[in-house]
Every structure is written in structure tokens, then in C-alpha cells.
């Protein structure tokens, strides 16, 4: 008998169902067996592989050529700098350098180095290695000396060999464990800036062998050097194993690490660029943790038993004013807007848990924070008075720019922030004319043109220095702010050159007050980024400046 189509189809369905069962059986059993790290340093009942969901591939493995968070997250495991960060704070602390001594005039620093530290390739870490790294940065040319690669060195150290503004002068290896760095002028942020992963110490031997600076490629886009693609060599607790672009980066514990090795024997950074997909990967057990949890997800994840942690904020979200707009040139209008905004309400209504209300353009852990700064408290009546004094008793219309479809650590949900602020402004008689853009277009409009009014933007700090916040915004005329204020500009450039941190702190406190008086914008909040982890992660070294090294992670199973 010939099987009827109906019978065949039924048979097919049954077969398909059976196949699915077999297949799912496979995946189940494989999950159960887990992946044991293979190393015996951890207790046998703990899975020593830690899987973290990264939002993108690293931009390369050589941190000196990077400026983005996902690259630094990986490089922090492999590399260490002369200066580290006090755990849980933003303050500089000894790391590969045990101590340092600035000269009287602040133009030279003598570092005493940790002895008996080896790079992963066996090269000793010594004063020669320190100088090799500084000289490498200074001598970059061409493509390697542009912002697309060496953003941090170029912007913090005033340029490269041959540039008039170059801050670096020379490095001398006085003996094996003493290195002196000479600068052309004092720079108050020098020590703090050395905690950036971009200035981590890399093995001179490996950099030479694998041509770290050979990033030529075609002119349109630089190519990786062999070093930056497959041979990053540092002194950190983890050693590079493999990188499958778009899939994962794998690191293994460094058996010869000089410090505490910790429980984690293998780190896998799984690349999952969709935020909802990261959450689902955590929920389904595919990953152990992920960063920048959406504010809307934190409560549900906590309820489901996941560990949600907040970093101390090291961010600033502000409402900026473009003073090329005539109405915004009137300080009374700027003050009125500041009084019209209820920051408390903004923080509780739309910003993530742990967010702090801002009174100035730096978070309170930064050196230079002014406790007594002039604050414009929420006072809609005062706002209306000021508007009337400025001649806008019948109302005022302003363009309000905000970005869409983007989430930044300081601005997880620009659309909601915009909605809240515009209704607050509406209440004092300010009509907003909303203009939204996609992220890159938005940045282009803010930084490249003066075609914007009041606008949302912010910053995530790199290291503990007021200049790293305020100096970025107000160090000269810019399209974003559209004002000239010589007094402020020169105060900032003077403070930058104060070698003594205390002196610099006092100068910056004054600058923060000066800014508050001038009201270039309204500092709104310091949003706190959240991380979420599997319940087996019992401790994670959350750091305001993301200085999170996974040898400090504790796992329970």
C-alpha cells in the first residue's frame, strides 16, 4: 500500500518530535557536566570558569590603542599599570609601582617598582620595561598618533615626539627598580591618569617580537598588529588564550601571578550585543553576569534571585545650554531653567537605583568636589520670576535636543529623561520644541554644529581628576556650549599644572563654584551603572572607575 500524504506527514511530525527530544537531551547532559576549569587551585565543587557577557568585541587586545570600556574590561585582566586604584573607590593606589615621589617643581616623578614581577612571557618587569613603554607612547607617529588609536596618550600628554605641547620629556632607569619620568611641565592629573588601562605596562620583548606598533594596513583603516590581535603580554592575573571575533575572548589564570590568584581559573567574555539577549543569557544560565543592566530590568532580576550590584557613580548627566541661542545668553533664563528642574523627581522617577542627585559637574568622590557649591533648588515660582525679569513673562520657546535608541552609563534612557524634564519646564511656562537624533548624528550636531538648544549629554569619568570631567567640557570655546569665558578657561589651564593634589583640589573647588555661578548648564544626576550576576557569584569587586579584576570574584558553586 502506498502511504497516504496524511500518514506520511504524521510520521514526519513524530520523527521531528523524536529528533527534538534527542537533541535537547544532548544539550541537557552537556550542561549538567559543566565545564570544570581543569586547574586544581579552586575547590573541586566550584565551576571555576566565569562567563561574562560583553556588549561587543574588544577593539583590540593592546590597551594602549583603545579608549572603550569593553576593551579595557578584557585588558584589565591581562595588564597592570604602575598605578592602580584603591578597591571600591576612584583613588590612585600603588600597583606595579610601590611608591612615587614628585620633584619640588612637579616636573619629574621617581617611581619605586615592585621587584620579582614577570611579564607572561618571562620578561622581567623592571625600570627598563617602564621606560620602554613610555618611550613607545611618545614616539608614535602617523596613524598610531591619531585619536582613533591613541586617544588617551594624545589627549592627556599633549601630543607626541616633535609636538610643541608634548608633556613627556624622558624616562631614565636609575636602577632595576627605580624609574624617573621627566615632564616638560607639571600636570596635576599625572599619577591618577596612570591608573588608566591605556597606560598599562606591556612586555617590551613581546611588543618587539610581534610588532606592536605595526598597525599600518591600508590608509582607510588601520590593521591590527600581530601583537594586538593575538599576543597581549602583561603582568596581570590572567593570560590571553584565544579570541574568536563576534563570539568570545578566553583568558586563563596566570600560574605565576605575583599577587592573589583567586578562584576563577578561566574567563570567557561572550559577545552579546543586544541588551535583552544579555538578560536572557543570564536567565538561561549561559552567562554568569553582565554589565549596564537596564533600569527597568533590575527589580525583576532581583526578584528572580539574581545578584544585582550598583557601582558607586562616577558619571555626570547634565542639561547643557547652547549660548549661541540668544535667549540662553541671559543668565536669568539659565538660572530660571535650573530652578525649574526637580532633580529629585527625575532621579526617583526615571533613573536607576543608586543614582545620586548632582549639584556640580563632578561626582562627590572626585578630588575638587565642592560641598558648599551654589545650588539652584527646585523652585518653580522663582523660575517664573526670573523668566519675567528677563522679559519672558508670556512664555519662552526653546529647542530641546536629545538622542534616541541609545543607552550610556550616565544616560540609560534619554527618551524618559527628556519627557520628565520637558514637562517640568512646561510648568514654568517654557515650551520645548523637541528635536531627537540617532546617537552619532546627535554627537555630530552637538560637537560639530551650533544647531541645538538645551540638550542632554554627559560623561563617564576615566580617573580621579576634576580636569577629567570639567576640563573636558569647559577647557575652551566649543560648539556644544557656545560661550567664551576667559576667566574659567584660564583657571582650568592653571589648575591642570598644579603638581600638589591638595592645592589642585582647592583650585578645583573654586572652579566648581565659578561654574555654578555661570550656569553653563544644569548638572542633573550621577546615575549608577548596575551589574547582574548568577546567584553563584557571591562577591564581585564593583568599582566606580570599572577597575574590576576577576581574580577578586568569589563563587559558591
Amino acid at each position, binding site marked *: 500500500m*502506498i502511504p497516504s*500524504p*496524511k500518514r506520511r*506527514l504524521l510520521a*514526519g511530525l513524530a520523527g521531528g518530535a523524536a529528533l*527534538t527530544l534527542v*537533541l*535537547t537531551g*544532548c*544539550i*541537557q547532559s*552537556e*550542561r549538567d557536566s559543566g*565545564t570544570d576549569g581543569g586547574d586544581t587551585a579552586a575547590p573541586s565543587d566550584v565551576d571555576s*570558569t566565569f562567563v561574562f557577557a560583553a556588549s561587543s*568585541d574588544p*577593539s*583590540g587586545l593592546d590597551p594602549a590603542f583603545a*579608549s572603550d570600556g569593553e576593551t579595557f574590561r578584557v585588558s584589565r585582566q591581562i595588564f597592570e599599570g604602575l598605578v592602580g586604584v584603591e578597591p571600591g573607590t576612584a583613588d590612585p593606589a600603588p600597583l606595579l609601582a610601590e611608591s612615587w615621589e614628585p620633584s619640588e617643581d612637579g616636573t619629574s616623578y621617581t617611581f619605586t617598582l615592585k621587584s620579582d614581577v614577570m611579564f607572561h612571557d618571562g620578561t622581567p618587569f623592571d625600570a627598563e620595561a617602564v621606560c620602554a613603554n613610555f618611550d613607545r607612547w611618545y614616539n608614535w607617529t*602617523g*596613524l598610531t598618533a*591619531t*585619536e*582613533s588609536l591613541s*586617544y588617551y596618550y594624545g*589627549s592627556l600628554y599633549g601630543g607626541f615626539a616633535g609636538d610643541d605641547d608634548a608633556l613627556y620629556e624622558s624616562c631614565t632607569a636609575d636602577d632595576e627598580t627605580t624609574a624617573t619620568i621627566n615632564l616638560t611641565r607639571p600636570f596635576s592629573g599625572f599619577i591618577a591618569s596612570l591608573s588608566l588601562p591605556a597606560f598599562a605596562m606591556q612586555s617590551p620583548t613581546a611588543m618587539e617580537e610581534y610588532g606592536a606598533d605595526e*598597525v599600518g*594596513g*591600508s*590608509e*582607510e*583603516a*588601520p*590593521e*591590527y598588529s600581530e601583537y594586538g590581535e593575538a599576543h597581549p603580554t602583561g603582568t596581570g592575573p590572567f593570560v590571553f588564550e584565544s579570541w*574568536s*571575533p*563576534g*563570539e*568570545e575572548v578566553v583568558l586563563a589564570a596566570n600560574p605565576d601571578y605575583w599577587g592573589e590568584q583567586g578562584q576563577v581559573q578561566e574567563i*570567557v567574555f*561572550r559577545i552579546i550585543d*543586544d541588551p*535583552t*539577549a544579555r538578560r*536572557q*543569557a543570564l*536567565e*538561561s*544560565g*549561559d552567562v554568569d553576569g553582565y554589565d549596564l543592566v537596564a533600569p527597568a530590568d533590575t527589580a525583576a532580576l532581583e526578584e528572580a534571585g539574581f545578584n544585582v550590584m550598583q557601582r558607586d557613580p562616577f558619571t555626570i548627566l547634565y542639561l547643557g545650554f547652547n549660548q549661541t541661542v540668544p535667549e540662553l545668553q541671559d543668565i536669568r533664563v539659565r538660572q530660571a531653567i535650573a530652578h525649574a528642574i526637580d532633580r529629585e523627581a527625575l532621579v526617583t522617577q526615571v533613573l536607576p537605583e543608586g543614582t545620586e542627585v548632582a549639584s556640580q559637574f563632578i561626582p562627590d568622590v572626585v578630588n575638587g568636589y565642592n560641598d558648599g557649591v551654589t545650588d539652584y533648588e527646585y523652585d518653580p515660582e522663582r523660575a517664573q520670576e526670573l523668566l519675567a525679569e528677563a522679559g519672558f513673562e508670556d512664555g519662552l520657546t526653546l529647542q530641546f535636543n536629545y538622542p534616541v535608541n541609545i543607552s550610556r552609563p550616565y544616560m540609560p534612557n534619554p527618551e524618559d529623561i527628556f519627557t520628565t524634564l520637558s514637562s517640568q519646564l512646561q510648568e514654568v511656562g517654557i515650551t520645548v520644541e523637541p528635536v531627537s537624533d*540617532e546617537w*552619532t*548624528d*546627535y*554627537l*555630530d550636531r552637538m*560637537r*560639530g554644529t551650533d544647531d541645538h538648544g538645551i540638550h542632554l549629554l554627559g560623561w563617564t569619568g576615566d580617573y580621579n581628576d576634576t580636569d577629567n570631567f570639567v576640563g573636558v567640557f569647559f577647557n575652551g570655546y566649543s*560648539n556644544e556650549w557656545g560661550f567664551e569665558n576667559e576667566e574659567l578657561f584660564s583657571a582650568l589651564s592653571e589648575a591642570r599644572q598644579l603638581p600638589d593634589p591638595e592645592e589642585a583640589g582647592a583650585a578645583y573647588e573654586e572652579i566648581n563654584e565659578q561654574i555654578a555661578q555661570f550656569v553653563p548648564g544644569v548638572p542633573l544626576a550621577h546615575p549608577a551603572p548596575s551589574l547582574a550576576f548568577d546567584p553563584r557569584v557571591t562577591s564581585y569587586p564593583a568599582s566606580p572607575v570599572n577597575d574590576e579584576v576577576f581574580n577578586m570574584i568569589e563563587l559558591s558553586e
Partner: protein
Amino acid sequence: MLRTIGRRLLLLIPTLFGLTVLLFFWVRALPGGPAAALLGERATPEAIERINEAYGFNRPLPEQYITWLGRLLQGDFGNSIETRRPVLEEFANRFPATVELAVMALILAVGIGIPLGYWAARNHGRLLDHLSVTGSLIGITIPVFFLAFMLKWVFAVQLGWLPSTGRQSRGVDATHATNFYVLDGILTGELDAALNAIVHLLLPAIALATIPLAIIVRITRASVLEVVNADYVRTGRAKGVSKQVIRNRFVLRNAMLPVVTTIGLQAGLLISGAVLTETVFAFPGIGAFLADAIFARDFPVLQGFVLFIAVSYALINLLVDISYSFIDPRVRIQ
């Protein structure tokens, strides 16, 4: 036959040339350039200027175009701005993943769609028919990303039956020779690796297959309905031709022509449809990469990848046209 193929391939050249012009100017018409995307908050006009200078983006557009085309003709597609790797290498690394996903989706869509459509037609007007028509309507209208998230939520998060992301589990001992993971597993005899890769393909493939599946059901159903009532089928029956011969040679073969055209069109669309599905399942194919490239304004990647996709789309259509001549001898004569 060979002449037809040759002519079609030759026609591809002016098409691709036209596409290079369109593409080049289209990606540059996107507001905000790669420098702003690269620098984010750190984008100052001076920094953008220096990057544009270094990458040659500030030169006159026609000059940039000619430089690009000149390199293209020598097989140099440039490097990705984001990842700094050659565009050709990035494509070659990721394309197998997308092809695997598209083939799996196509197998599901065709393997289920044709029998279901046939079945619906044979039960015309009955409950089963109504169900399949309604079902396929839902299949066409449901947004792919919504379906993808729901599938993941049910089968990966709640039930834990299937993996939620990736192409293969860690810890599976797999040799990757061709980067087609399923094929690699079969070729090297590592069947567990192949099976593991298939398991990873299931959810994204189901999500990707729904729209083509629904369309194939509808076309098959309509086409079979039309053919079963044709004169030659009635004549065949009257002559006493066996039921099986009627079904296979009279009905199915004739009904398949529009279905094959649809499959060809859908196969091309699967590759672009993969952009959403791959992003949701963190599946490292060209789709997810292309989506990133759009946000990053990664000009070389956008230009190169779209060209490659266009070529594969054209080749798939060529294959479909060739397959016509096997199904329908009338096409051969023309």
C-alpha cells in the same frame, strides 16, 4: 544552457558596478561619520578632523570613490574601521554561520511549508485548511524579533531545553576546518559537535523560517488548488492514471513552479532577515556584524558586505532560474 548562464553572469557586472556607485554615496549620505561613532562623547571637531584626515574621508568624494574602486578591482575591500580587520576576512569568517542558519531555516520552511500547503489544499474548505490559512497569516504578520525573544524566553529561559545564544557550546571538542560547524562536525566525524551546532541553530532558524514558511504554505496551497482542477488532471484521472502518478507528476510538478520562484526570493531575503535574528541570538554571522557596522558608520564594511550579499542574492536567483528548466521543459526551449 551554458550560454544563458554566461549571459546572466556578464549582466551581473554592470549591475554590481551600478551598485558600487549607489552604495558608496549612500553610506556617505548617512548623517554622522565613522569618526563620531568611534569617539563617542570624546568627539571634538579637531579630533574628528584628524581622524578624517588620517583615513582620507575628507578628500573629494569622487576621488575617494575611484581609490576604493581601484582597490576593489584588485580584490582589496579595505579594512573595517571598527575591528581593523580586512573586510574580506571578516566576511569569510562570518558568512558560513549565516549560510548555515539560512539553510536550516530554508529546510524548515520548505520541509514543513510544502507538505502543509499541499495538505491544506487537499482538505480545501475544511477545518485544517482554515487553520493553516490563519496560521500562515499570523506567521507573516508576527514581528521576527518579537517571535525570537518569545522563543528564547520559552525554550531557553523557562524550559532550559535549548541554548539561548551562540553557535556551539563551550567544552564541545570541535575542529573548525570550513567554519560551517555542522559540516565540520560531519567531515571530521565529530558527530556530537555537529549535533551541538544543530541544536544551537534550532531557535534562530525557527524564528527566521516563520515568514518564508507562511508564504510557502500559502503559495503551495493556492497553486495546488489551481492545478488539481486543471483539464489535464481530469483527463488523466479519466484515463485511469494511478493516484500516485497524478499527484507526483501531474499536480505537484506543475504546482511547484510558483513555489520554486517564491523559495528563490525567500532564500535571498533570509540573508537580510538574518540581521535581526542573529542580533537577538548573539549568533556570530554577517547579519549581527552588519547591524553594528551601520551604527558605527563603518564605511568599508557596509560597502563590502552589501556587495557580497548582492552577489549571493544574484547567484541564488540564477540557481532558481536554472532549476526551472528541470521542472518545466518549456523554459528550456525558450
